């Protein structure tokens, strides 16, 4: 049986992991390579590297770090941040990324999804959508959640899946950082719309939040989080054990 995936997300700026990290036994806690190795050895099913660099040098550094990581970590790697063209896909795939996540780049140019899927296959193209309720309607936000595009989110996600996005990361701005659980209502709406894998993001605060997610929404394929893993509030091995005890298929 296919297992539910647990995915830590690393924000990288100028070659370092952003957000303080607190791990015993890690010499260099903000080295993306070291952290990726740590997660890989401790049960992460996949890793997301998010490039939040603005400068060209930073981007070059990110690409080097990605190459270094892909040489020593042998689980799927998804890369996002600053992906605006098919050339950007090419750049990160050559460094060992397996999947590429698009967000604002696809909002500016939806054809990017189609072009990339045609060249690299649907399985390679991940749509990441930042979604927030505005007057009771799910809306897509751009620029890291700062700008309301006015687009209706479920329709946008359906359109992207039709164009070739092979997976959807749904990041609820409403629950992000609140740590009181994933946005089940929003995720349910997405799961009922698309038939490609859906990855839940935003809101996890404890192990129980993942259990609730997978129990209530069996169509959700994976749970993504950042700080609760980085700060050691949730250890992936403990989470996997609890999932297995609760009858949720988990890779251990």
């Amino acid at each position, binding site marked *: 049986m296919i297992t539910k995936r647990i995915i830590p997300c690393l924000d990288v700026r100028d070659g370092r992991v952003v957000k303080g990290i607190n791990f015993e036994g890690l010499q260099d806690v903000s080295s993306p390579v070291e952290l990726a190795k740590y997660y890989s050895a401790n049960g992460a099913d996949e890793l997301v590297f998010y490039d939040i660099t603005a400068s060209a040098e930073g981007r070059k550094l990110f690409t080097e770090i990605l190459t270094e990581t892909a040489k020593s970590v042998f689980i799927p790697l998804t890369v996002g941040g600053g992906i605006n063209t098919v050339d950007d896909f090419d750049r990160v795939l050559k460094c060992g990324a397996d999947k590429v996540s698009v967000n604002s780049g696809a909002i500016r140019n939806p054809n990017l999804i189609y072009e990339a899927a045609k060249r690299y*296959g649907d399985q390679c193209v991940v749509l990441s959508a930042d979604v927030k309720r505005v007057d009771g309607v799910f809306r897509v936000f751009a620029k890291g959640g700062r700008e309301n595009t006015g687009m209706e989110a479920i329709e946008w996600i359906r359109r992207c899946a039709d164009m070739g996005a092979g997976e959807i990361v749904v990041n609820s701005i409403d629950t992000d950082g609140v740590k009181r659980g994933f946005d089940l209502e929003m995720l349910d709406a997405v799961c009922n719309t698309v038939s490609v894998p859906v990855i839940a993001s935003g809101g996890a605060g404890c192990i129980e939040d993942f259990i609730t997610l997978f129990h209530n929404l069996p169509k959700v394929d994976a749970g993504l989080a950042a700080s609760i893993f980085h700060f050691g509030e949730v250890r992936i091995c403990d989470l996997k054990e609890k999932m297995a005890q609760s009858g949720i298929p988990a890779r251990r």
Partner: protein
Amino acid sequence: MIAIVDYGVGNLFSLASSFSAIGADAVATSDPDIIRAAERIILPGVGAFGDAAQKLRDTGLDRVVIEEADRGKPLMGICLGMQLLLEKSYEYGEHEGLGLIKGAVRPIADVIPKGLKIPHIGWNALHVTRQTPLFKYLKEGDCVYFVHSFYGADCDESVIATAEYGVHLTAAVANKNVYGCQFHPEKSGEVGLNILRAFCELEAQA
């Protein structure tokens, strides 16, 4: 030395890195002489079957791979590379494969229950149906990483492992010195690296 056959399909970075990580000497090459001189051959592949099979034929490397396999050299196809080992594929039309393993490539949509997602993507447990040296380090319940929408059908006694996705899908095949994995050992963590290790330890068959 291990030759990773480079026929212009997909990215060989992760495969080369994973062999390097287990201390094996592997090189991605399109040179027939290097492939002939290698002790083992990996046939990788991503994308569509028809396109990949055509590229393999255009480069003439299909003959090299078949000849070396016939000489008893250990050969392993990975993902689409496994599918290319079979006799034919029904992915967008009908295409000839290398015919080193019995069977045909068909859409998983034909066999899996409605409601399951396509592609079959993620970590799934390997069920060993026939013990082979390739699995000597494998433990019951070990998971590997899959990404595929087509599968090896009618492989019969060549099936050495399956993965349960509503039905039992072919996960690995073997015929003497020829092996194939539908999953990605180079993306399957320590379990995958151990499968590559076991492949590096296979003896050539006369």
